[in-house]
């Protein structure tokens, strides 16, 4: 009796269909993706190839594109340069004050961008900042870059503003990268006679290639989008410190919305090319 009762219960039991679950999940996901695509489509509809061509012919915009490409690349390289050691130290070692350091590293991420710009500007008004500014001016003159007359309101300010924020994101990425790499092979390397330096350079670093590419891409993209700190710390002087985000702002402020949108489309294209390139590199070489 009991057995037959159980059997009928099992027969009556049905697993609910998965359709409602997937409908809800896909609907929520699709709404956000639709927003992103709709924005890009609207941008594309608002401007035309003729407008983009006209914008590209503008020497101001050409300068701005070049400065963006160069400054973003330099700041991304610098970001990875500091992110690798910080990420490694934070991931592998315990030390007093680590929680404090961790918090400090997050400041550029949580601080409003304008505040970072103002802070940089104030920093370079202190006596030490001024001395650094003058020293950098002399170095640039000595190196033959006569047009760069210091840091504040010059091209180095653009890079420093981008770097300050981008490096924080790159650092987070590298920290996660090293957290995910098993430390035991490095321990074995040390028992085999390697110091910390060799264990890092020959065992840990080669494994972090994918993370480094990700950190570079993220830093590059953040740098391309940086606006607030550049506006305050580097100014928006055409043919001098104008990058693409400032171009959008400058075009927009003089009422040239078509131009602003055309520059935006150029930025979208650049960002996508860089994303694709780095993905290709990391898939090609990252496979262990």
């Amino acid at each position, binding site marked *: 009796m009991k057995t037959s009762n159980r059997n009928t219960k099992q027969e009556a039991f049905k697993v609910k269909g998965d359709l409602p679950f997937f409908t809800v999940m896909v609907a929520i996901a699709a709404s956000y993706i639709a927003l992103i695509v709709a924005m890009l489509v609207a941008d594309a509809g608002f401007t035309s190839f003729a407008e983009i061509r006209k914008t590209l012919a503008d020497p101001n915009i050409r300068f701005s594109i070049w400065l963006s490409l160069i400054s973003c690349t330099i700041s991304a390289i610098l970001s990875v340069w500091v992110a690798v050691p910080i990420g490694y130290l934070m991931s592998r070692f315990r030390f007093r004050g680590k929680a404090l350091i961790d918090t400090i590293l997050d400041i550029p991420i949580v601080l409003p961008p304008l505040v970072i710009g103002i802070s940089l500007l104030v920093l370079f008004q202190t006596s030490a900042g001024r001395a650094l500014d003058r020293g950098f001016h002399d170095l640039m003159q000595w190196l033959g870059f006569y047009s760069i007359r210091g840091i504040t309101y010059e091209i180095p300010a653009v890079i420093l503003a981008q770097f300050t924020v981008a490096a924080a994101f790159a650092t987070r990425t590298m920290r996660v990268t090293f957290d995910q790499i*098993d430390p*035991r*092979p490095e*321990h*074995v*390397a*040390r*028992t*085999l*006679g*390697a*110091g910390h330096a*060799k264990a890092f350079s*020959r*065992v840990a670093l*080669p*494994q972090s290639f994918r993370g480094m590419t990700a950190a570079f891409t993220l830093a590059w993209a953040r740098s391309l989008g940086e606006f607030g700190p550049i506006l305050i710390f580097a100014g928006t002087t055409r043919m001098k410190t104008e990058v693409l985000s400032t171009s959008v702002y400058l075009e927009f402020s003089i009422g040239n919305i078509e131009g602003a949108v055309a520059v935006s489309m150029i930025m979208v294209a650049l960002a996508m090319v860089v994303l694709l390139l780095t993905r290709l590199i990391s898939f090609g070489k990252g496979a*262990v």
Partner: protein
Amino acid sequence: MIEARGLTMKVPGFTLDQVSFDVSDGSYTVLMGPTGCGKSSILEAICGLRRIHSGTIKLHGKDITRATPGERGIGYVPQDGALFPTMRLVEQIAFALQLRQWKADDQKNRINELAELLGIGHLLERKPIGLSGGERQRVALGRALAFRPRVLLLDEPLSALDEDTRERMIELLKTIHQREGVTALHVTHSRTEAQKLATHRLTLNDGVIAQTVEGQV
């Protein structure tokens, strides 16, 4: 000969207090004890990867308590091998030899010798990805033995292997112990491994080590 005296260390989850033991020269010593009792921590302390709170470790009469892992010259095979993921196997075995600046010919001879002993000659140009558990352990052994250490520490090297592979590895470990003339300290919780391999036995229970020689139990 390893002489550990009054080892005290704090590990998350437990504390080892005043642990002392000897591992005599040329022996195959098996260190047993329940899971999570600190066996691995003791191995890590001997090879210098874990800081000890107090106590001394002597290797062949020399105090190595404060020496760096590299200075101790101890071969270490951790659980599941911990191979270097980006390096070809031949590079892994040559790693310690390159650091010691062995001549290219000597390196080559030593690698061939170990490849033959461990039966991994056909794998040398590969990277670790896709190796079986037994193959990983054999490469890890080759990497640890390459620079001819006098002491070899093995941390549960057979625990992740299937029955057949384990049997073959036990035979291999016996051969290595004889051919390389190395003093071995092998951590395990398997009685079978201990019975088949041990010449000396250490048992860690509640932070106390009991020392026995096989046949004198």
